[in-house]
């Protein structure tokens, strides 16, 4: 299933497949380890417009709602 990071369900693991935005935005995300092909786990969803919290590797990262909406992820189907 392909979905934006904002709408990804809590506690689900998914792979980043698309990042909307210019090279600056890509670089910014990359600095904390977010880039195409990376697996993330969503820890908490945006409530009342607050940020989304995800885990990448061993780092927890808070991302604003708008930014999260520009990241598209694919949920891995576990066999």
């Amino acid at each position, binding site marked *: 299933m392909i979905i934006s990071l904002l709408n990804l369900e809590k506690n689900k693991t998914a792979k980043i497949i698309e990042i909307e935005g210019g090279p600056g935005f890509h670089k910014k995300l990359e*600095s904390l380890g977010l880039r195409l092909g990376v697996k993330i786990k969503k*820890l908490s969803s945006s*409530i009342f417009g607050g940020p989304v919290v995800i885990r990448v590797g061993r780092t927890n990262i808070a991302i*604003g709602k708008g930014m999260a909406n520009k990241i598209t992820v694919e949920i891995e189907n576990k066999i």
Partner: protein
Amino acid sequence: MKKILLIGNPNVGKSAIFSHLTGIDIITANYPGTTVEFTRGYLKYEDEKYEVIDVPGNYTLDAASKAEEVAIDLIKECDIIVNVIDSTNLERNLNLTLQLLPKKIPMIIVLNFWDETKHTGISIDEKKLEEILGVPVIPTCAVTGEGLSKIVSNLNNAKISNFSYDQDEKWHVIGNIIESVQKVFHRHHTFLERLSDITIKPLTGIPAAIIIIGLTFFIVRFIGEGLINYLLDPLFNNFYYPAIINLTKNIKPEFFSKLLIGVTPEVMKSFGVLTTGIYVPFVVVLPYIFSFYIVLGFLEDFGYLPRLAVLLDNIFHHMGLHGYSAIPIILGLGCKVPAILSTRILESKREKIITTVLILISAPCMPQTAMILSLGIAYGIKVVVLIFLIIILIAVITSFILNKILKGEAPELFTEIPPYRIPSFSVLSKKLWMRLKDFSKDAVPLIIFGIFLINILDILNITNFLTDKIGKPFVYFLGLPNEIVSVIILGFLRKDVSIAMLAPFILSAKQFIVAIIFMVLYMPCIASFFILIKEMGLKLALTIVFTVFTVAFFSASLLNFIIK
């Protein structure tokens, strides 16, 4: 002299290592962006002297931000790079390392948080990493000091790496390195990780935040008040005061004795250098500085502050900020000077301006808070609570308005949330000691001088003169006694003292509230004024001061008309 650069991602422990190497203490904490200034120190090893520079954390060297540009410039002229890496986050940290290696400068890699790899289920083969990258790799634990002596003894072994890679294949290369040096074991979540999840998720995090903030106030007040009532006040009244009176009773002429011990025996009203001048800084203010920084130090090192920033992000967006602004504002509850400096972690100028205004008006600093509690308690705890609520309300309204006036959008929150870490007792006590030392060195002499000045102006009748000439309009709008004008004018020199100066007036509860609100808000203290100029430039600093003054005057006048 050789120059050593400590460089690495934010929150990897560079400052802790710097302190160990140079013996210079700098404030460390568990959140990205603790260090905002470059600190220089010196280190001597085998008859050679080195200059060590602690560089604020960088994720990359893309020259995307000013901090990164400065780091790039420093690299050009340094002799040895000490690249500090968070061992539990190899991938992200190696990204910076791979950008440093091609600079062709002798380098050492420090794998910090080595102890944490064990209970996070990671095993790193540091010898293999050394082999691949071609520079010495030293595992350390900066908090306990483990392995740090090896950094020094390996300075001569720093090597220029001849590791080369294709820029486009960077992540692939990093992936391969990690594959061959790191093993990850499956393990259960630790207690601290579960606690982390609980305090981040809004549903459980918001109640947790309320409990933590409530507990913070309770502990600060419990320790502060306990120290005053059971230790310092009895010491002062039973031993110090009688001794001073005894020593000074024969001093002539009367002018000098007035300066030293004042005229009334009531310590808060005498304004003698040796009575009020000692009582205010050491008995009223110091205990609260002490208790506040105990709690703040713990929260900083444990890693709670970034979590609070995440929870507050939504509210702060309505004020044109993102949640990370909460950190400077919380630091401002202690002292405005480090708080204004810490706004450097914010991205845009707009954010810095709004946050700085909020730092200045959202709450009094700890010395002022101590004075407000000390004097306000006579009017009842309700009055004191009301004062703080009014101040917060004014701050919120002001930032809403600023958000509308200043063009632009708040950037979105994008930050790493560090893992919880059990604070080290020795690091905590060292940090507390540094903060108390700074207070004694910077603030105490000014407090005593302020009290001296107030007393001498009073004795020389200058106070009355000022009151007569400038007093009238203020007093009319604020509904305060004429004599308070001199307090307001002098308050700029020392804001906490200015509140102490209210003690001799017999104010009604309403007048007390109006006076406190005005005096907390109307001007930054002289120290924060200078730091404001340094950070913002004269023009912007004056604009901020003028804005804050306007807010103070209007809200205090308004209160005077509203409160019955």
